[in-house]
């Protein structure tokens, strides 16, 4: 029975998961704060000039994004491992130690970003201050530290999976996390050639967010469906293998859509376009899968005589988490799939490359594909650690979910309009020059889009505050069925 999986008490692996989730939530807050600073700077250019310039705010915003998501992903694995394998995670004490090492390293890296910011053009800077490459600015010493921590995590996963029950979900995660970890190595070198630099940089970023991370989401969604609505393992695991085939079948060669303009051969136009155009398809599958299974389980459990999962008529045993999982199904398809498809063909991308259109896609995709399901996992952990049978919505959970979702959609709309303007004015009309760039930035459509983006960012941040309050308080509320 799925409900017996929910007890978090007594499992060290689940306890470690809650540590990872807690740190992730804090870093998520930092991400939003630095995002607000950057958004304000687009509207008021002198804001914190010389103190916390846009470049530093942006670095902190995107690094915090990656860090909180990686922490939450690790937490998700530590959380589900005992349920899936039936045993306590092997080497969990080392896992716990590595958590503290990881967290401490992040704190040091962030402090250096904030207080030192830049360095001279030397290897020392690259090793100790910043590598200056998007998302992976972390200095080389931290890279090695991350490799050690990740190896420990992968070892925990592998030994537990091999000793305990190696379900389909665990098998997918084992393979996926090896790839996820190995890919990070592709970013750990310096080259004089900007083309070579960007070629390998994309191996990390694309094969993370458009391949291994998506497969991870598929695995977590499968676990969530089993846990929350009693979906049958064989069914969700079949879907999972289909999703893996489609995700890797499209995503691995879809990497080529980043090789249109960086100095690489022209054949990447066709390879990148054709495979990345297919990337939305598995997201449709994931979307259909979640909603279909929900409807099917509800129907089955309403029928009499079925040895159902339902408890007192509730199909879903964790309403807030399931809401976030369904939002993941929509958001993944919309943000990653649709917005991604808009600008994936080279004929379009030639004009949208390097504009706010990319930012529009990035924001909705990261939110829809990853933030949503990871917040869902936070709620699963709250339920498990408090031993609650049915976790219901509270006013706070409904408000926070709505504000965050509407805020993100609003931000995306604003950024899409800003990107559209840039394409028409700066690129098509003015030929991508310095003057053309600034002309594009100064028209009313663009500036008003930046205003609205900031307003919507504040909406998201407000929703986040409510989310944090809900996560801290809902576990003890009497509205739930204990």
């Amino acid at each position, binding site marked *: 029975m799925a409900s017996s999986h929910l007890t978090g008490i007594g499992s060290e692996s689940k306890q470690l998961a809650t540590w990872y989730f807690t740190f992730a939530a804090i870093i998520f807050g930092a991400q939003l704060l630095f995002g607000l600073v950057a958004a304000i700077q687009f509207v008021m250019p002198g804001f914190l000039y010389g103190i916390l310039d846009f470049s530093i705010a942006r670095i902190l915003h995107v690094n915090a994004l990656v860090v909180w998501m990686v922490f939450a992903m690790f937490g998700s694995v530590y959380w589900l491992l005992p349920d899936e394998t039936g045993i306590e995670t092997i080497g969990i004490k080392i896992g716990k130690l590595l958590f503290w090492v990881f967290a401490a390293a992040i704190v040091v890296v962030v402090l250096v970003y904030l207080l030192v910011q830049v360095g001279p053009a030397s290897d020392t*800077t690259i090793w100790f201050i910043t590598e200056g490459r998007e998302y992976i600015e972390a200095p080389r010493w931290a890279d090695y530290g991350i490799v050690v921590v990740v190896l420990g995590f992968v070892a925990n996963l592998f030994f537990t999976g091999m000793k305990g029950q190696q379900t389909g979900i665990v098998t997918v995660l084992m393979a996926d996390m090896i790839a996820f970890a190995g890919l990070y190595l592709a970013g750990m070198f310096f080259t004089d050639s900007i083309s070579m630099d960007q070629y390998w940089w994309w191996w990390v970023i694309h094969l993370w967010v458009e391949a291994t991370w998506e497969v991870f989401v598929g695995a977590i969604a499968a676990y969530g469906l089993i846990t929350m609505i009693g979906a049958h393992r064989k069914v969700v695991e079949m879907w999972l293998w289909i999703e893996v085939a489609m995700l890797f079948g499209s995503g691995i060669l879809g990497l080529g859509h980043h090789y249109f303009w960086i100095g690489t051969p022209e054949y990447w136009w066709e390879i990148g376009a054709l495979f990345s155009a297919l990337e939305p398809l598995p997201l449709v599958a994931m979307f259909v899968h979640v909603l279909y299974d929900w409807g099917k389980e509800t129907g089955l459990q309403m029928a009499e005589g079925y040895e159902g999962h339902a408890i007192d008529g509730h199909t879903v045993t964790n309403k807030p988490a399931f809401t976030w999982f369904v939002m993941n199904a929509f958001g993944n398809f919309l943000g990653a799939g649709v917005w991604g498809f808009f600008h994936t063909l080279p004929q379009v991308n030639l004009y949208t490359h390097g504009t706010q259109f990319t930012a529009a896609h990035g924001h909705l995709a990261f939110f829809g594909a990853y933030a949503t399901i990871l917040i869902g996992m936070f709620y699963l952990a709250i339920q498990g650690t408090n031993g609650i049978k049915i976790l219901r919505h509270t006013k706070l959970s409904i408000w926070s979910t709505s504000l965050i979702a509407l805020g993100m959609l609003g931000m995306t709309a604003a950024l899409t309009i800003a990107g559209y303007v840039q394409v028409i004015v700066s690129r098509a009309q003015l030929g991508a020059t310095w003057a053309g760039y600034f002309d594009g930035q100064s028209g009313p459509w663009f500036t008003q889009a930046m205003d609205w983006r900031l307003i919507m960012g504040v909406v998201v941040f407000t929703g986040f505050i409510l989310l944090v309050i809900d996560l801290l308080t809902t576990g003890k509320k009497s509205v739930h069925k204990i």
Partner: protein
Amino acid sequence: MNKESTVANKSVWSDNRFWQRSATWVTGFASLLLIWLTFDSMGQIAMGNDADIQNGVTKRVPGPTVINRKITYEMSAARGHEIPVIGAKEMFFGRDDYSEEEAGALLHLGKLGQQAKNCMACHTLLGNGAYYAPDLTKAWLDPAWGPNGPLQAMTGKETKEEAMAEFLQHPNLYPTHARMMPDLGITAEEAKGLVAFLKHMSSIDTNGFPRNFGRMQGAVHGK
């Protein structure tokens, strides 16, 4: 109740093993094809050398001594888009005879500098980065830095490269927009390296990105 035992002829389409094996095959094939294409691309984007430039051998990523040369961006009828063209020798910071080692050292310093100062956290290089400041792919060829543009006069310099280097060392003294570039502590030597990096980057064959660079005036295709 075990559902499987009541099914006489289970379809392959609902069999997990079929999909697991298919997923393994598709992933393996896609990975191998990516690796093959990577080997091919690595050969194609390997940086050229001075001999290539001397002998007119076109490389997608020219060698560092391209800084000794004039670079333009011209339409190619065969390729259907603009391509960088490496021309005659041209002075760069007073010299047109940088050796491979000297030019390589300047490029190396510039690339390190570009990373050490987080340029991509405001600008885009080859279109990648942040969108707070202009794309720098063809900055070397930008009309604003040219003899008819405002920036040489603003920085009080007589050549493009000196104007760029001066700007980089004191960007807060030369505001071009309300959105100002901060002072990043760039030294004179680092500035020279960064300008060399920018000049080299403008010579990379980007399959025609950005389109129509510097050719449009208003909404009319001008010269």
